């Protein structure tokens, strides 16, 4: 059995995606916490192109980009599959996983900007959440159906990170009762044992996000 190493960083949601999937599949791995403000030689060697976490190293061979990693883990350890067998359903899951990637700039903008730029981001973010809820999730319990799947893992940051981001920024995107199905999905997702046991501490994350928010406001207004 070749050794598995995960280079990650608290509190990155990208890092947690890989943790969740490795644990869901019962894969033993060694976790290496990276300091993103002082990246290790190991990280720079294993991901010279992006110099980012997460990086999975299996038998000495590195893989970067969280979704690419998840597909690799799915193919290498097929137990507790993340993707259905049917090719069409697989493609739909991949479509929503890709959609999640498209949403990143909007949510970054929401967190990092101020004034008019932020107002635009807030409007856009709410529209994206609406699409995710109505077209992605629909009437299903999870994006994956009855069980969590690849798209649920990709959207996992909404369950574990969005509320904290909203608190740090002081603006609510998911106002009460406006997104009932997405809200229900958040509760169901967080109730999955592997997810429940592997979420960053709320208070620590809030302190960290507040600090980052201060920094972004500072550079936006200076």
């Amino acid at each position, binding site marked *: 059995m070749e050794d598995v190493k995960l280079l990650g960083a608290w509190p990155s949601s990208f890092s947690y995606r890989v943790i969740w999937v490795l644990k869901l599949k019962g894969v033993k791995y060694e976790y290496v916490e990276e300091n993103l403000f002082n990246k290790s030689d190991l990280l720079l060697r294993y991901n010279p192109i992006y110099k980012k976490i997460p990086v999975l190293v299996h038998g000495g061979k590195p893989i*970067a980009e969280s979704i*690419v990693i998840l*597909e*690799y883990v799915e193919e290498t350890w097929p137990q507790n599959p993340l993707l259905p067998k049917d*090719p*069409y359903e697989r*493609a739909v899951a991949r479509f929503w996983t890709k959609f999640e990637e498209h949403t990143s700039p909007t949510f970054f903008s929401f967190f990092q900007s101020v004034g008019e730029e932020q107002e635009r981001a807030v409007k856009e973010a709410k529209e994206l959440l609406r*699409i995710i809820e109505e*077209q992605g999730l629909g009437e299903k319990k999870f994006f994956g159906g009855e069980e969590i799947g690849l798209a649920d893992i990709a959207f996992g940051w909404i369950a574990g990170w969005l509320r904290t981001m909203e608190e740090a920024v002081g603006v609510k995107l998911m106002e009460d009762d406006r997104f009932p199905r997405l809200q229900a999905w958040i509760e169901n997702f967080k109730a999955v044992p592997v997810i429940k046991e592997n979420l960053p501490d709320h208070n620590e994350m809030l302190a960290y996000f507040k600090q980052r928010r201060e920094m972004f406001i500072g550079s936006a207004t200076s």
Partner: protein
Amino acid sequence: MEMGVQLLGYWASPFALRIKWALKLKEIHYENVEEHLPDKSPMLLQYNPVHKKIPVLVHKGKPLAESLVIIEYIDEVWKHNPLLPQDPYQRAKVRFWAKFADEKCVPTMFKAFSKVGAEQEQAAKELRENLKTLESALEGKHFFGGETIGFLDIAVGWIGCWARMNEEVAGVNMIDVEMMPLLSAWFQKFLELPIIKECLPPQDKLLVHTKEFHKMLMAALT
């Protein structure tokens, strides 16, 4: 007629071209439905309500969007002439590089085409660096897929054709033969393959289209 395969595309779209190449390599008969962009047909809006973009593949009445997701679907449904490698690590590598090309090369290429002056120079420089990085994925092979073309070849092959057009119209150097000799050679070889060449949009028509598009973008700058 292969059990109802339709491709909603646009003649000048590199993303639709990827799908045409995939379908061609798999010898799948399909109906090409040409969208008359910028007008979007009710069919397109119905089949891709999220992005409202081509390409869309419709198989047995079920639509799929996102070109790379579509190619993976095609590879899974029609198993002959495989496009992706069998080995999970090799699959991870081609997915990583396809993502890199889309995320790094596409925006910088557009910027180098649509801007002028220092901004254009900077974008072109970045694009050349990204293409140089992409070159390393060849690993000294004839094609990204090895002895024969595969997923990554058809994912990035369009760059060779469009870059040539963009260079001529915008007066900017994108594929620097000295800087990236292997990639340059690969583009030439790839685009000369009969199966690839016959799907390319008519070059004279594409040149006119590119010139018109460029004119529009330049007007928007002032």
